[in-house]
């Protein structure tokens, strides 16, 4: 009797479950094994925190993927509706514009890329080690200077900069949109072809180079590729405290109400 005949008599769900449990068993063993020899921690309380952070990061990636998936399906469903009334077509066109404005749509076009990396210079005797690392302030300065030079969309290592983006330090690394990023930091900007020329002419940018690259050896490099790609923002756009303010031509509410509402 051939294997196919034999296995076809085993219910397929049992085969699938069996394979899954086998795989699970291997992975649990591998996970436990991988924890043993890596004794690089300096304190006992660190190890569970690293595990927690790792799991949370994995969950974040899955949630972001789910958000991008749903947004894609919603966009497709809304546009499939477009066969009907002109008002629906018009709303869909406005929705696309609004999504572009919010950073929800990946873009491609002209622009530039700047890369920041930690210094390789030895720390001077009277200096702080953190001065030799790229910090959130450095990244924010580059982002601010890019906007000022005419950038129309900016991303840091695949995190799109939006109206809600915060860039903060966490140890020697940074969080952008609460996503953990490690150097080197690639800052991609969509903008006019002369964006790099405009950036280089900015006194604020010249100051950054002098104060960080020349003094502490922070590594700064540039690229002007034929085209740059900006990723979509994969976070939340649902606001909880801000509500639409009616335009002045609308009928005003009957009486002023307490702050909560909507």
């Amino acid at each position, binding site marked *: 009797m051939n294997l196919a005949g034999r296995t076809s008599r085993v219910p397929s769900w049992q085969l699938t479950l069996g394979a899954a449990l086998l795989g699970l068993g291997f992975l649990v063993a591998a996970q436990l094994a991988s924890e043993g020899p890596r004794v690089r921690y300096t304190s006992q309380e660190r190890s569970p925190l690293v595990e*927690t952070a790792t799991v949370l990061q994995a969950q974040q990636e899955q949630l972001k993927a789910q958000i991008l998936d749903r947004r894609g399906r919603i966009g497709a469903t809304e546009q499939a509706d477009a066969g009907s009334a002109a008002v629906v077509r018009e709303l869909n066109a406005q929705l696309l514009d609004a999504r572009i404005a919010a950073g929800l749509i990946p873009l491609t076009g002209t622009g530039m890329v700047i890369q920041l990396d930690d210094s390789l210079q030895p720390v001077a005797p009277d200096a702080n080690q953190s001065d030799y690392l790229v910090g959130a302030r450095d990244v924010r300065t580059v982002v601010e200077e890019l906007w000022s030079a005419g950038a129309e969309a900016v991303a840091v290592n695949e995190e799109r900069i939006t109206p809600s983006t915060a860039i903060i330090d966490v140890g020697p690394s940074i969080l952008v949109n609460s996503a953990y990023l490690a150097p080197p930091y690639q800052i991609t900007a969509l903008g006019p072809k002369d964006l790099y020329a405009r950036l280089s002419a900015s006194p604020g940018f010249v100051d950054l180079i002098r104060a960080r690259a020349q003094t502490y050896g922070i590594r700064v490099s540039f690229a002007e590729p034929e085209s740059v790609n900006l990723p979509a923002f994969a976070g939340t756009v649902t606001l909880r405290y801000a509500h639409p303010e009616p335009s002045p031509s609308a009928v005003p509410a009957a009486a002023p109400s307490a702050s909560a509402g909507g």
Partner: protein
Amino acid sequence: MTAVAFALGLLVVVQLRTQASGAAFAGLSSQDLTVLVANLNARNDQLRREVATLDRELTTLDSNKQRGDASIDELRADLQRVRLYAGSEAANGVGVSIVIHGPIDGSALEDLVNELRNAGAEAISVGGIRLVPGVVAIGGPGKVTLDGQAVGDPVELDAIGPPDKLTGSLTRSGGLIAQLAATHPKVAVEVTPVDRLVIPATDRNLIPANGHPRL
């Protein structure tokens, strides 16, 4: 079965990531890791809520389609939500009003805005100008411009969001206001919770001229 598959999937990701990020997190102290975990937790909760919102929207759109109805109400609601987030709609809500006296510089003002965003600010204006991508405060002390206009002294900054968190993030010991007191001694910052702020829409064109969607 689904639980096993999910656990399997999660373990695969964790296994790969532990190997990669054991090294990535090596430079973080316990304190840094605690901050990171708090941030990731808060963010993941937000993302889960967004997934739930999107799932509900998808369900409504699908059931409308089944009935042959056009989803005009859903489209309008979606449009308003995205425009509000982007800064294309004026916003109202609870928040804080911040007044800055003295020779502040563009960098410090941007640090303040960054801190507010980190604490959950959902809409921010400086001198009545809605902050959206492209609008930045630049310039030396007392010479700050925003979107090409001089910012003046005092500067008024409004932020819609949770007033306690917004205030707390600025006024906590070692927080931004304490840091400014050390680096900018001539600058004074007042933070006042407000029941109802109104923040105008941007009048900037937020559609890029140098790029197009990569769908």
